[in-house]
């Protein structure tokens, strides 16, 4: 066996080892350096892992787990980034505000069509929570609104509905959620931010917000909440971002 031969120079690493080695380190280096999404064949495995991760996340999800912003972190206020799809902040004029309704439909016994006044008359909840962005930043914010749970009760949502779609007037932006996340006590239909009326940049007249979902799942400029038997993708989800988007 060549391996036994001791030449005394770079001894004992024979050609086979070298190739084996070179191959392994080269492929790892290529993988790491190519700056792409990685090999095509790996995508199926990643899809599989994403699916499994979603079931793990849904398994450990609890309505009793609450998010609380740290007391010593001040609210982001105007430094809370505001995103929208339209070129300019989607803003309703007086006529638009008068015509605006929040519809609650789909698998419900009693479809709702609420004005902002109707919404503000319902039992309100104020919470100081973190907003978690998929990019990794967080912002502390105080939101006031109606819990989606109570809206679902009001609309007599079908217990068989497994998904909820949140639709907007911002260029067709929408995101669909699993019902468990939608019914989390901290999932609110928000109409006030940091003690003031929700500004247009943050989704006026009303938006959905929950600390249990990443920022992009929280539809602003809300128009319609639809209880559904199947998931319905979403604006960012359809562009490749994870559908579950849980925090």
């Amino acid at each position, binding site marked *: 066996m060549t391996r036994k031969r001791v030449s005394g120079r770079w001894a004992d690493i024979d050609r086979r080892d070298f190739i084996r080695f070179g191959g392994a380190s080269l492929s790892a280096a290529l993988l790491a350096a190519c*700056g792409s999404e990685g090999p095509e064949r790996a995508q199926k495995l990643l899809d599989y892992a*994403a699916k499994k991760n979603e079931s793990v996340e849904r398994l450990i999800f609890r309505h009793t787990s609450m998010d609380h912003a740290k007391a010593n972190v001040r609210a982001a206020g105007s430094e809370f980034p505001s995103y929208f799809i339209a070129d300019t902040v989607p803003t309703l004029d007086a006529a638009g505000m008068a015509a605006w309704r929040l519809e609650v439909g789909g698998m419900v016994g009693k479809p709702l069509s609420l004005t902002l006044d109707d919404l503000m008359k319902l039992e309100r909840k104020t919470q100081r929570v973190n907003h978690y962005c998929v990019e990794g930043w967080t912002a502390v914010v105080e939101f006031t609104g109606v819990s989606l749970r109570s809206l679902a009760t009001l609309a007599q949502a079908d217990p068989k509905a497994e998904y909820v779609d949140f639709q907007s007037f911002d260029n067709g932006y929408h995101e669909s959620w699993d019902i468990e996340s939608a019914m989390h006590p901290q999932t609110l239909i928000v109409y006030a931010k940091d003690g003031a009326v929700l500004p247009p940049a943050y989704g006026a007249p009303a938006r959905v917000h929950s600390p*249990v979902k990443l920022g992009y799942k929280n539809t602003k400029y809300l128009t319609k909440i639809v209880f559904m038997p199947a998931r319905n993708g979403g604006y960012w989800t359809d562009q490749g971002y994870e559908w579950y988007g849980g925090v």
Partner: protein
Amino acid sequence: MVKRHHWIVRVTHWVNAIALTLMVSSGLGIFNASPAFAPKGGTFCCYPFEGKAFPAALTFGGWLEGSRRWHFAMMWVLVVNGLVYLSFVYLHGEWRDLVPRRGDLRDTWEMIRFYTFARKDHPRQGKHNALQKGAYFAMPWIAVLIVITGLAIWKPVEFSPLTNMLGGYAWARYWHFLAMTAIVVLSVGHIFMVFAVDPYSLRSMTTGGYSERLSPEERNARPFLNLLPKRAAPAVPAAKKPKAT
């Protein structure tokens, strides 16, 4: 020629090398989407490079969700592989080569003296020298920190007691980043020393084969010095001499 590493150690080592590379590079890809620790509207005391992204060449995944998908898939590989390694090392007794013992601090100091030419001969050692032992013993503990801090930022609401214990989301993210830095520093040091002092260990970590004759202790090897084994001793011909007479 002796078998230096059990095949389970060799396999988990290389799986770990690949998984760790992918975790670090995809993690940097995620980090680059928002390369700062301060919550919006706030400040962060302890990171001097707030807002500065890492070079794209160090990242993996192509875009934010690409990096996230790799990160959240490879994390399972890293954890399962790590558990296999640790259980094996525990059950098979290899942990004895790695746990700190009395005298390790002094031995570490002697190794440093040797590498800085303050000492002539390589300190005597067991399977690993004292510096190696320290590094290999620290790695799993840092890995545990990485997993704990990772859980805290993966599910900050479900694991809010853990996240709060670490100082909240921003701090947990920072600890995760620091633990990653520690493991990268140890790994880079490790890889450097493999090539500069003991390239023969590449073989022992691949096929398992190793010869004591090639050990750094036998070669009195410092980085880039005495890479080649000593010539076989002239003891053999010398021993023959009396016979010939």
